[in-house]
């Protein structure tokens, strides 16, 4: 775990700073409408979950917004956020965002059995690995019909297999 964390230290900081600005509005709205605090560290938590090296911080922010949109339909979303916020801070022994990257991972791990964490994880996994920027990173081109499929574009171009006769 530590190995993965270190390489993403910078990214985590960037994503968090970006998010603080971005999520401020929605947090205020939530507070006005429902009198509840929004969980504004979502993008930073998603960085901890999927710490890819070469992903722009803005992607984590976009994914966090998609997760928020997906989960805001849940009746228990406000309660989950409150509980998650409290659990994360308790595990951190301080406001979670004030920790360094490795300590953030440890705190996240400490709450990984909670409903909050599982809910966020499933939603974030779904949105993150559906994101075009993440597809580009892993080398998945997505839709191919418009390009005529792969019949003439390498569907059988594998060239390193041994000759065998089944």
């Amino acid at each position, binding site marked *: *775990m530590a190995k*993965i964390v270190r390489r993403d230290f910078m990214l985590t900081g960037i994503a968090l700073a970006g998010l603080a600005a971005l999520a401020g509005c929605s947090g205020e709205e939530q507070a006005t409408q429902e009198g509840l605090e929004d969980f504004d560290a979502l993008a930073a938590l998603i960085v901890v*979950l*999927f*710490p*890819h090296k070469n992903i722009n911080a803005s992607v984590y922010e976009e994914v966090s917004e998609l997760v928020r949109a997906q989960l805001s339909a849940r009746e228990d979303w406000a309660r989950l956020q409150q509980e998650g916020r409290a659990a994360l801070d308790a595990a951190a022994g301080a406001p979670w965002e004030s920790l360094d990257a490795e300590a953030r991972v440890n705190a996240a791990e400490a709450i*990984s059995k909670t409903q909050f*964490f599982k809910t966020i*994880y*499933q939603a974030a*996994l*779904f949105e*993150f*690995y*559906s994101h075009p920027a*993440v*597809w580009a*990173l*892993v*080398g*998945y*081109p*997505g*839709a*191919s*019909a*418009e390009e*005529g*499929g*792969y*019949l003439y*574009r*390498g*569907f*059988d*171009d*594998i*060239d*390193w*297999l*041994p000759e*065998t*006769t*089944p």
Partner: protein
Amino acid sequence: MTVFAPSDDSVVVVIGSGAGGGVLANELAQAGIDVVCLEAGGRLSFGDIVNDERVMDARMTWRDQRIGEGLLNPNFPAWMCKTVGGTTMHWTATSVRLAAHEFRAKTTYAMKNSSAIDWPLTLDELEPFYARAEAKMGVSGTNGLPPLPMNNNMKLLAAGAGLLGYKHVTSTGVAINSAAYDGRPQCQQIGFCKSGCVIGAKWSTLYTEIPKAEATGHFELRANSMALQIEHDDAGRVSAVVYADKDGAIQRQRARAVCVAGNAIETARLLLNSNSAMFPDGLANGAGQVGKNYLKHVVVGALGFMPGEVHSYRGAQQGGHIADEQRNDTRRGFAGGYQIESAAFSPLSVARIAFGGKWVPELTDAMEDYTRIAATFITGEDVSQSGNGIRLHPELKDQHGLPVPVVHYEDHENAAPMRAHASNSARALFESLGARRVVPFKVNMATHNLAACRMSADPKDGVCNRWGRAHEIDNLFISDGSQFSSSGSVNPTLTIVALAIRQAAHIREAMSAGAL
């Protein structure tokens, strides 16, 4: 467009438009028999089918509430489609005949703690209908069609199979056009088979059986029509189907005969929900067998992280298989056999299934190896247990006010050793080609839903006879995978289609003879 009156009691009502219902309805219509086909889902056109897993999942997946128990996901026990064409929209088109021994599950396997029976029919009897099914569907390697060209992932499986000494490695047995066939184009190796084929190279009833049936003038499709209850007359013969139309209004179509092909869970549920004073436990359930003995195959997947590029997403998602392990050989430590099939997964699918949806530090590294992932999907014989099945929830109701189905499934003791053997086979295959890492994974989600209204020689053992005709009600038919007596190891669609063709011939003959 042909329209039948709700009061017309000369029509056969077919419930479902997939591999069972769509084929049966067309076969009947071709013979001049009037058919009303009720399909719970809507009708897509080619313009609606796109290379987007999430969009197509939303357009096609059956999302009505269901409860899973045992090993199943509590909220989503089975994946099937609610759309015209049913699960033929989502399927990966592997079309292989059951082996002779797989028709004799009880005799061949002699398992303990099992409710297995033999099929009341043999491979010899079904073979002519398999041949007609293959011709209908354009199965590669039959009817002058060449094998499907092997894509990278299948070439890799074939190379590994060669190193392991497997002999039966093939890209025949795929209902995807290896050449233009039946007015449909050759496969362009697009991928996204599970999201619906955008060019119609993969067989689906949506653009084959359904329009062909419509052209006869003997067929009316009613999409967005959810069957709620089958009614019967004082003599105990079925007489009408009550359904909710696209606006939720309740309609009643009278019927000469009713054929149920709702994919095992909905088929059993509909019979159970059709209880009456005469049939207090539901239709055709005098022996208490409706919903019992549910089978879904023993399924294992494996990813191999290979030393070179594979790009397994390119081309047909299941373009071939290895059949050597289909045999019954108890020296392997289990009864029955399994098929090793080519597979391909999107990044989202890899992330979700390969690591069980869990937070693991190796996920990000694995995902960055995506283009070097090879994949296999293995289906094996499932052993019948009377406790596995479908029942009605005592309180929960769906949007139509009907009890929600509860699906219960536990592994038979035969499953774990089979799964271990299959995982080892996949591991050996990938490692023979230098895999740096192999990740086997268990799949509990059911996509092959079988046998919950099975055919049996003895009416005490099942719901219907060797023609899929209910033991208790002679104008009620089971017309989908529910009628399987056992699962076999192969993907079930080809057998569902063969049984539907055979059942249509039986219905036609019975009607001609004045016996229906």
